[in-house]
């Protein structure tokens, strides 16, 4: 068997890359070890029949606006999104809340309940940086990362650009302290960072923080996250692409520093006349599938040092007989119907402390909770009148005492914490529950090493030009004909298909294929 390209891993990035390549007319094979496609786009009836649970990705923030959605005409392949009216609701221990709105004036009015000065600052940030974020962030996600020197060269030409560079170097907490006075406003915006796994006191994250202050969309894939993978597969197969599931790759065949195909676990060899593209996380791709003997020592060092030590998630998937009614809704009704309800304590310090606890292997006893009920917006994900909920709590992967004994008690503890905010969430309203501790997350998808749901820490040393490694952020590798396309590449983890799109762009350029998209 011989193809032009063999893509290893049918996660959404692998499928997106494969679909772009197949549409050039190339003969493409995608091999996937699991029985299903989609990777972290994984929806299944994990509790009761008819209750669809999204086991990893819940929201696809960038997909509907991305070139991938447009180029691959995903809507025609059954991928549709619904948008909640209210974006997020941060609820504080005293049952006050902040709801996040798309409209600047509504958002400013919400913030003004806590601080008129913060509301004014928010308006000013939108005026000063809103268009900058719009004009730069999305386009730069869907292209290879900028060298730091180029980014700096453009910004350092002006006073405003230099100020932005300094914010970029700061920690989220520093930035929020500089911008806002109200503790509640800071907690609200900080949670926009930490919920993605960005540490609150990590230097070099200020730029991301600014983006998260100004942008918060929450498109939900109708039918569940898995639908995106089905749509991508449909595009790919319509172009003649072949997907083989339940097939494990044993190694990538390398000869004279050129990847020529893959050897499957069953012993079959599949040739790739042009290239092999791996969507598998770096340590498995390079140390296991390629082998150190085929790689420069310096590259092997970089691979070994790629890290996934950040916070992971302890997840509860619930089948509910009714949606939660939050105490906070008495004063702020939209809280009940926002995309998510986020309970991260009452101070910035609470989030900083939670991250510190996690770093030493302790599961926070205080709430670091994000709750989402996709069924409030997409009725197709549960039987009529019923709901599904996903409960995320920040947690360590390596719990000091291990998750085996602790998980049941911790799950009940979290339900108790949640109930203190939403009193109707009594035991009888929970029809069924599936516990997913961080080790389960890794078992479900071993690209998510240590349960880190963004395929390797999104820290300044592993972002942009440095993702996955300095000098290797162009999706190419030291082995000719071997490319990377996973969330461990720029623009990082999350469901946006940026890495798949960008890898395809580079491959098409390298092989002088017809670039059929704009």
């Amino acid at each position: 068997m011989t193809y032009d390209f063999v893509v290893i891993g049918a996660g959404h990035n692998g499928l997106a890359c494969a679909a772009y390549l197949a549409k050039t007319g190339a003969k493409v094979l995608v091999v996937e070890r699991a029985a299903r496609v989609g990777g972290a786009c994984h929806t299944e009836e994990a509790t009761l029949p008819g209750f669809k649970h999204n086991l990893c990705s819940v929201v696809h923030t960038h997909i509907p606006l991305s070139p991938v959605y447009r180029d691959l005409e995903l809507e025609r392949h059954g991928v549709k999104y619904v948008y909640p009216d209210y974006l997020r609701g941060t609820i504080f221990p005293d049952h006050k809340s902040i709801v996040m709105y798309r409209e600047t004036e509504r958002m400013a009015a919400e913030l003004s309940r806590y601080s008129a000065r913060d509301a004014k600052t928010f308006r000013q940030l939108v005026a000063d940086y809103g268009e900058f974020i719009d004009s730069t962030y999305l386009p730069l996600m869907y292209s290879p990362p900028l060298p730091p020197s180029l980014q700096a060269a453009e910004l350092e030409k002006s006073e405003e650009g230099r100020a932005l560079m300094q914010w970029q170097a700061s920690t989220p907490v520093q930035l929020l302290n500089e911008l806002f006075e109200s503790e509640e406003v800071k907690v609200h915006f900080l949670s926009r960072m930490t919920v993605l796994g960005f540490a609150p006191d990590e230097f070099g994250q200020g730029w991301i923080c600014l983006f998260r202050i100004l942008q918060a969309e929450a498109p939900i894939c109708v039918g569940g996250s898995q639908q995106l993978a089905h749509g991508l597969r449909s595009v790919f197969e319509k172009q003649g692409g072949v997907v083989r599931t339940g097939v494990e790759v044993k190694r990538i065949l390398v000869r004279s520093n050129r990847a020529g195909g893959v050897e499957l676990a069953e012993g079959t060899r599949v040739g790739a006349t042009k290239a092999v593209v791996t969507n598998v996380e770096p340590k498995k791709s390079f140390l296991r599938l390629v082998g150190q003997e085929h790689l420069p020592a310096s590259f092997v060092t970089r691979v070994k040092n790629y890290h996934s030590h950040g916070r992971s998630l302890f997840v509860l998937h619930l089948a509910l007989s009714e949606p939660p009614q939050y105490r906070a809704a008495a004063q702020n009704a939209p809280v009940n119907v926002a995309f998510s309800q986020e309970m991260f304590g009452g101070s910035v310090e609470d989030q900083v402390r939670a991250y510190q606890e996690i770093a030493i292997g302790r599961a926070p006893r205080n709430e670091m909770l994000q709750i989402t009920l996709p069924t409030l917006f997409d009725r197709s994900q549960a039987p009529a009148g019923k709901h599904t909920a996903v409960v995320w709590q920040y947690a360590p992967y390596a719990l000091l005492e291990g998750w085996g004994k602790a998980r049941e008690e911790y799950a009940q503890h979290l339900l108790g914490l949640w109930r203190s905010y939403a009193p109707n969430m009594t035991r009888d309203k929970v029809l069924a529950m599936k516990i997913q501790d961080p080790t389960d997350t890794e078992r479900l998808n071993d690209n998510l090493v240590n349960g880190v749901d963004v395929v390797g820490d999104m820290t300044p040393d592993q972002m942009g030009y440095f993702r996955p490694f300095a000098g290797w952020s162009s999706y190419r590798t030291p082995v000719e004909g071997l490319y990377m396309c996973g969330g461990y590449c720029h623009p990082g983890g999350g469901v946006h298909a940026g890495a798949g799109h960008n890898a395809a762009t580079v491959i098409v350029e390298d092989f002088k294929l017809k670039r059929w998209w704009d």
Partner: protein
Amino acid sequence: MPERAAKFTVNAPPHELWKFLRDLEALCACIPGVERIRLVDPRTAELTVKEKIGVVPLIVNLTARIDSEDPPRRLHATASAEHLTMAIDVTLEASGSATELHSLFNVKGEGPLKPVVDRLFERRATERTAQFAGALERRFGARASEPPPRENWLARLWRCVQRFFSAPSPPSS
């Protein structure tokens, strides 16, 4: 490749408008964002253009050169900078005592900043064209009209065919 076509009716005869277009310093004073201009020779100028994206300015140093001209009817120029190349076609048509100015800007972002340049041009081109028209109106008492809808590929092809068969004029020195 993003492009924008625009049409203005300028309250001046073609030869007067042409004189203005060929006075690069005067012309650039009407182009929004131009902060500095240095004339290299009668056909070439170096410009510094500042385009603010919110509060953050993007500062571009451009070299603009007139590649060909057919006074007082047609002019083709190219402007290039580190991250972009812009092709500019200007056609003047007499309309009574006034002149219809047709312009076509074709921008090609280059290198790593291509996606940002392309997006920025898409966002800003219409607004900046309107500002340029406003500047002409102030200078000549021009009446600015709406930019025409973007042409489809067939219309562009037809225009190219027409150009191909029209008699080319040698560039003046």
